[in-house]
């Protein structure tokens, strides 16, 4: 059979098959432990933080398999947001699981008014296109915001996401607070360009900055038009950023969310347009993110996601209250009603 293994029910424990569509309620017992009730049965799920970019050794994968065997007949799952999720029959079992996971280095937490997860892409770790290293930023943020994962309450759900470049594989744009890598130089064309599909490369440029020089079998980048998006760099190995160590960095965006709860689906907005890459701990970036979280925590109402709070008070006061400077790059020139229409379209 081609495609994914299916039916998926073959990979589910019996209790879930029996209760499929029959669950009646759920309750967060404590961060990371959720109780699910059907008419006659009960199950606990226990979810642990994942490593940055969800990278594991086979040793750890086998330990997960062991836990699944010992607690639930060999079944477990991974959430859509990176986290390994285990099943338990009783609350005691769930708490034992939690302890075991924590001993392995995987704290249990999330759900409710907590930090649920940090997604991140491969960045320098595995990708060819990174303008910033997502995994190390994700780790630094996780350490700094850790108490919100399994201890202190926030006004509402909080998600963080880190992506190495505007492709946003790690979910830049979509989390309450997202970090997205950006290039800020105009790429240059090298000899290698000859080996690329020149027409295809020219066509990929979103602003028509690439001029095809058919005769010379090369292309030229018009500097005044190029927005440094990097699409051509990804498409053709003969186009490169020359000094990424000087020019690459990342932006902070706030206010993305997916759920229908007002104000519905939202994309993050750029509040800090550029921060330099400063591994291992990205102090300034982490400080700015923590400042946003803490201001929101102090000022928002219960149940108010980050963007709901900002919508209530307005951007001017967001900057006043967080103390973050307002940068002109946060201003989109397309900040006109037509763009709003576009951004919003129909929908939730």
């Amino acid at each position, binding site marked *: 059979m*081609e*495609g*994914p*293994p*299916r*039916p*998926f029910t073959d990979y*589910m424990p019996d209790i879930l098959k029996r209760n499929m*569509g029959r*669950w*009646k*309620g759920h*309750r967060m017992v404590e961060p990371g432990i959720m109780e699910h009730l059907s008419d006659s049965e009960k199950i606990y*799920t226990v979810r642990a*933080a*994942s*490593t*940055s970019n969800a*990278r*594991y*050794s086979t*040793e*750890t*994968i*086998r330990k997960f*398999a062991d836990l*699944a065997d010992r607690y639930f007949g060999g079944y477990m*799952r991974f*959430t*859509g947001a*990176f986290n390994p999720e285990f099943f338990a029959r009783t609350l005691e079992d769930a708490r034992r699981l939690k302890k075991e996971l924590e001993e392995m280095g995987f*704290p249990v937490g999330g759900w409710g008014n907590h930090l649920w997860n940090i997604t991140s892409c491969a960045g320098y770790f595995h*990708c*060819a296109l990174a*303008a910033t290293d997502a995994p*190390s930023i994700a*780790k630094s943020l996780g*350490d700094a915001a*850790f108490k919100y994962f399994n201890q202190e309450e926030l006004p509402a759900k909080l998600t963080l996401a880190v992506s190495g470049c505007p*492709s*946003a*594989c790690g*979910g830049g744009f*979509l989390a309450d607070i997202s970090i997205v890598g950006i290039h800020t130089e105009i790429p240059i064309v090298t000899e290698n360009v000859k080996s690329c599909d020149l027409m295809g490369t020219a*066509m*990929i440029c*979103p602003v028509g900055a690439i001029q095809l020089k058919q005769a010379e079998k090369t292309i030229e980048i018009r500097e005044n038009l190029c927005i440094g998006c990097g*699409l051509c760099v990804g*498409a053709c190995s003969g186009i490169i950023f020359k000094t*990424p*160590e000087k020019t690459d960095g990342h932006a902070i965006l706030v206010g993305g969310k*997916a*759920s229908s*709860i*007002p104000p519905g*689906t939202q994309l993050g907005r750029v509040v800090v347009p550029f921060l330099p890459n400063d591994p*291992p701990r990205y102090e300034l970036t982490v400080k700015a993110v923590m400042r946003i979280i803490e201001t929101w925590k102090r000022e928002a109402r219960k149940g108010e996601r980050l963007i709901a709070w900002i919508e209530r008070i307005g951007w001017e006061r967001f900057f006043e209250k967080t103390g973050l400077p307002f940068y002109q790059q946060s201003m989109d020139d397309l900040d006109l009603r037509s763009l709003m229409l576009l951004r919003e*379209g*129909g*929908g939730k």
Partner: protein
Amino acid sequence: MADPEEVVKGLEIIKELKKGPWPSYIGETEKTRYPLKLYAASLYLKRDLWTTGGYVSVPGVPTGILMRVTSRPDIGESANVVRIYLPSGNFVTSKMLRNIADFADKYGVSMVHAITTSEDFEIPGIPKERIRDFVSEFRASGMEVGSTGDAFRNTTTCVGPALCEYALFNAPKLRDDFYDRFNDYAKYPTFPHKMKLKVSGCPLDCARATQKGDIAIVGSWEGAPRIVKEKIENMPKERKEEIARSCPTGAISIRKGQLDIDGGLCIQCMKCIVMSDGALLPGERKKYLLYVGGKLRGKKGPFTAKLVEKFDDPYQAFDLIDKIIEVYIENAARKERLGDMLFRIGMKNFLHLIGKEERAHNVKDLRTNIFIKVTDEEKEKMMKELKKSIGGE
């Protein structure tokens, strides 16, 4: 041979990343054969040391396998990545995990990327010359690789009714059925650019379908949420008032001490439901919403998905998806995501191309300018409808 400076300094940097309470990917990586020195050097040098090798197709995987070329072969080897489809809902068994771990040990660097943001597993670090063997052996073990190229990338869904009482349909099952019907579009790279279908069981959209789905299917309903009598009766008055106040459209009032929800005003936002401790649930007149054009990059940057149609049955969406694919293939430019195409040609044209008429649910706001083109037939039709609805002569 001694490590070059950037590796020595780099390893200092990553040592720091082993500290702290958040799980450390560095700690994990040290237990693998991943070229950590290469990564360490890149952090010190502040530049990515991988270069792209594109997707190279191998027999049986027409959409290709992702190639990773190192720009510093002296400190790290080139390596390629396979993406592995998981069962819908990302349910895995210990057997499956061990099987994948075995393959990662044998072919890769003893590392598993468990789970990608698009909800595959990956095994990184497979040398080029071993990919073919890997693929056939892995397939024989009952699993499939994919989610690459200009094709349907992995379709993701929330966990749905398997664990969640909000689910308005069996989202993971729909993914199974999607692959029964559409696998060719996932297997062969026939699209202008990648396409992603994301599916959520209810408007809370745990699959982030409305942010990331070129096509998104989201369970919803019509009218008011369902009230669970037993539970609502025991709810303290203040909680009821709090719930009523929280409704964005003012659909909820309190009459005779009970919640009274005006279905005509409910926009299915779920706010009251998540506040209710199970006393309110999604309504019973189920609807399935099809959105298009979400994505995070493309040529024009991130767009949220736009509502196209509401169905009574989620499977009705499949026929429209067929049509959308056709229109996408015919109309999109090379490397143009569906959302960018939509932006370029306009929602109106898009609706017409897929054989739909515009309706109020397709817009969030209406036009403010009146540079309107209308034909005589349209006018006649308009007047007829208007007279019918407001009783003109």
